[in-house]
């Protein structure tokens, strides 16, 4: 352990975790249940969703919750279902404002990407799903309008999964990347069976892949499909998760795409509107055995505090999670060495996110699990449909310890986990957790941190850059060294986390310096900032503190 780490007020790893994740779903008034539309059909999309998001749709400074939902299959009506928007009542409870917000829309939704694509200061939504995915523009008056057709994103039918907003051409307007899974429709459904009799959910090998989409934001509220022009077109992909990063550290946003049974893709931004796929030569396309794994969720973060972003990818059971460390010249899977591989072997992972759960200045890793087939228990010994999530605690010495069983009885409850998002809904400084489950409820976990560790948070507002500051890199220097976070949309699986960057600083009351590298190329630097605050950082202006306690 480095000497400077001792300065932090975090406990030794042998001690129990200093926080509990308490299930406050019911108390918060979240009464969502995912509807798959299943009628015995066992259509592939039924087992894939749903996603979730933390967003501040009404810009009141308190995080609201969006939960994506499925719907009945055509010809098989069961019950109406829509996605759900819950407004934060600022007292630990939420109110269902779906109808009032104009989001009581029925669609076969899967994922959500949140960002202010039109730079009007209010977060917009892109809901992915089976068939036509939809863009909902925030009117700024607490409502959304469907802008799919007017934005040029209409007339596209696919099995779309995760999506993210990023400014790949650094023109100040957020572009949209959408993952598409396989070419599937009820008419093309293939009969698959595990026991030779009953229909089961097919693995993606049964279907042809599909290309991801890249839509360039023209800045006038419309989008241009630049999938082919950018070199991202790849009809063989079966993509489920996407995260943005800058692996070559050139200041231009790159992408890592997790593919199911196909090689993962690592797209390097060529800075000219095109991308070059470099996953094989960077060692992230395949598993150690040379086979493409079943990539589901993905996230990128500087978990080693080297200034380079590593990558986490959840995979199928018996494939283990991948945890890739950036060596500067590529990636090396260190899941086995860090203890993550063995712990995740018997789990089928979906959403995964790096976040500093105990605010000790080191990124921990959260992953939700759940099998795709409810009969797996009968077919695979030791495997269950509902599975407990993982919280891998960073021991600051190169290992991660699964502390799922030590952070409260609610967390470890087995679930068919899918979506995962992070955000501080109660504004107490630490990060809370939102999960969704397939054909089940959503879970809101409040982080009750007891060690007194503090955080410092930066909410960015771009001027020349996109208004959300997506793609910006925030770095802080404190007694423990340097930490970095990227303002990013997407990551995880089908989900969107709160955009502000949260840093754990232990017991420190000040940080020496904060720098923001904006996507526009501008760098802002601030010195001696008190911690335990959120700062609103407008591009080119001094930070404005917003107390979160």
């Amino acid at each position: 352990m480095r000497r400077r780490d001792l300065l932090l007020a975090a406990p030794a790893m042998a001690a129990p975790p200093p926080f509990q994740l308490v299930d406050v779903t019911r108390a918060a008034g979240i009464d969502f249940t995912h509807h798959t539309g299943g009628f015995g059909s066992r259509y592939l999309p039924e087992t894939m969703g749903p996603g979730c998001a933390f967003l501040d749709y009404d810009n009141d400074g308190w995080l609201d919750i969006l939960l994506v939902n499925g719907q009945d299959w055509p010809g098989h009506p069961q019950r109406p279902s829509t996605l759900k928007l819950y407004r934060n009542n600022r007292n630990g409870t939420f109110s269902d404002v779906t109808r009032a917000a104009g989001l009581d829309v029925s669609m076969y939704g899967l994922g959500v990407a949140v960002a202010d694509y039109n730079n009007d200061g209010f977060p917009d939504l892109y809901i992915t799903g089976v068939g036509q995915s939809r863009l909902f523009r925030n009117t700024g008056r607490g409502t959304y309008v469907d802008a799919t057709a007017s934005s040029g994103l209409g007339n596209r039918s696919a099995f779309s999964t995760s999506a993210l907003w990023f400014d790949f051409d650094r023109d100040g307007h957020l572009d949209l990347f959408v993952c598409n899974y396989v070419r599937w429709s009820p008419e093309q459904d293939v009969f698959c069976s595990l026991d030779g009799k009953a229909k089961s959910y097919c693995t993606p090998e049964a279907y042809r892949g599909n290309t991801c989409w890249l839509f360039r934001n023209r800045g006038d509220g419309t989008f241009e499909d630049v999938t082919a022009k950018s070199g991202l077109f790849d009809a063989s992909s079966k993509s489920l998760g996407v995260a943005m990063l800058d692996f070559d550290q050139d200041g231009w946003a790159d992408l890592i795409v997790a593919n199911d049974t196909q090689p993962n893709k690592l797209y390097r931004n060529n800075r000219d509107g095109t991308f070059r796929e470099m996953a094989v030569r960077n060692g992230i396309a395949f598993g150690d055995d040379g086979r493409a794994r079943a990539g589901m969720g993905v996230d990128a973060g500087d978990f080693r505090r080297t200034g380079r972003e590593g990558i986490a990818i959840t995979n199928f059971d018996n494939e283990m999670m991948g945890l890739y460390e950036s060596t500067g010249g590529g990636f090396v899977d260190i899941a086995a060495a860090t203890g993550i591989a063995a712990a995740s072997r018997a789990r089928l992972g979906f959403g995964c996110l790096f976040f500093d759960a105990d605010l000790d200045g080191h990124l921990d890793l959260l992953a939700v699990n759940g099998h795709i087939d409810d009969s797996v228990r009968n077919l695979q010994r030791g495997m269950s449909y509902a599975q407990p999530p993982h919280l891998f605690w960073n021991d600051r010495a190169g290992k991660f310890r699964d502390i799922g069983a030590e952070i409260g009885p609610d967390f470890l409850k087995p679930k068919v986990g899918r979506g995962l998002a992070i955000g501080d809904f109660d504004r107490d400084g630490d990060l809370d957790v939102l999960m969704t489950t397939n054909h089940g409820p959503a879970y809101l976990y409040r982080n009750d941190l007891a060690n007194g560790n503090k955080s410092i948070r930066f909410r960015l507002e771009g001027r020349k850059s996109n208004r959300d500051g997506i793609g910006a890199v925030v770095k802080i220097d404190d007694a423990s060294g340097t930490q970095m976070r990227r303002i990013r949309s997407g990551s995880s699986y089908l989900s969107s986390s709160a955009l502000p960057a949260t840093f754990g600083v232990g017991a420190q009351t000040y940080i020496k310096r904060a720098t923001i590298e904006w996507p526009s190329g501008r760098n802002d630097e601030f010195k001696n900032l008190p911690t335990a605050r959120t700062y609103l950082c407008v591009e080119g202006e001094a930070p404005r503190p917003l107390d979160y306690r």
Partner: protein
Amino acid sequence: MDALPGKPTSPSRRLVAGGLLTLLILLAYGTYTLNSVRRMRQVQADIVDQNRKAALQLIRIESDLNALALAMRDMLDNFDGYPLAAWSAQLDRIRENLDDAISVESRLATGRRDPQQTAYLQASFRQFWLSIDRMKATAAEGPPAAAQGIIRQTLQPQLEALSSLTARLLVQNNAEEQRAAERIAAIFAEIERNAYVFLAISLVLVVGVSAALIRSNRNLFDRLATLSNQRRELAQQLISTQESTLRSVSRDLHDEFGQILIALGAMLTRAQKRAPQEFVDQVQESKVLVQETLERVRALSQRLQPVILEEEGLGPTVEWHLLLFQRQTGIAVDYTAPDTAPTLPASRSIHIYRILQEALNNAARHARIAEITVRLSNDAAGLELCVEDHGIGLPANFVPSVGLTGMCERAELLGGTLSIGALTGPGTTIKLTVPHV
């Protein structure tokens, strides 16, 4: 007396030679095994590993060809309305990967494959990429139907041919790997056979060396026994000679010097009667001197060869000697006489007497004692003499003295045994057991 054996020969040279031979054989076998393993590793590295790597590259080529086939199928399907040019990047990626795989595979196949075959593979791919480029150019310029025509009429058949070629190379690769496996199996069999030969040779050598050792040991023991017998005979002769000499000296002292001194005493008595008054005292002194000399001569004669032994036997001799010992040394003797008087001839009793004499002398000299116990017993089994003292005992580095060796020799002459041991407390015990003849 046995004849003296010839000059003994040491087995060491033969043993060293045997050891060296065994070592040489071990070295030869070790070298052979190492060479075989090296040969196997070479075969493995040259053929099996290379083949495996080449097979992986061929599988990679097959996988890329499959990806190309799927891409072409999508291109013919008017995939989601994307123009055929959209596939450009995907095709370029596959081409980059394929070129790399072919290059690696060709390197691995060098020297193992007909160069014409490699050249044909590379030429086929060149031809294919030319067709791809033509299709891409057509797609960029004209309607998709023309490019799709190239896919159907040229690219797909070429792709099929490439797939067949790759499959053939894979089969060829497998056959070569099979042959390599057979070669390795042959090497294993050879090693196994030679291991048995080595074991047999080792067994013969071990048996031979063991037999030589046994024979050598037997000779050594025989020689040792002969030497021991000779030494015993010599010792017994020495003892006999010593006893004979002592007896002779004793008799001479007793008979001749004794008679002379008696006569001298008688003459001095007569002379005293006729001597003038002034010489009477001097003659008296001479008579006393003669008498003392006579007694000393008699005592010396007794010590050298007690006449009592011949006249009265062992029991009284022991008692007489113990009294003498007690008187001379001042050490009290606790003597237990036998219930039945031993009836040994003087020629045997003298050895028992000498043993007792030596044991007492040793005790008086070394044991620092004031008392000593002597037990003489005689029963049907034989005679037993036990001399016990509670002195300082035997030293830790006790080495038998000449006297003690003589005692043992005498015991052997009697056909008995002599044991010397420490008591449970301080002290020493000497026990002589003599069977009845």
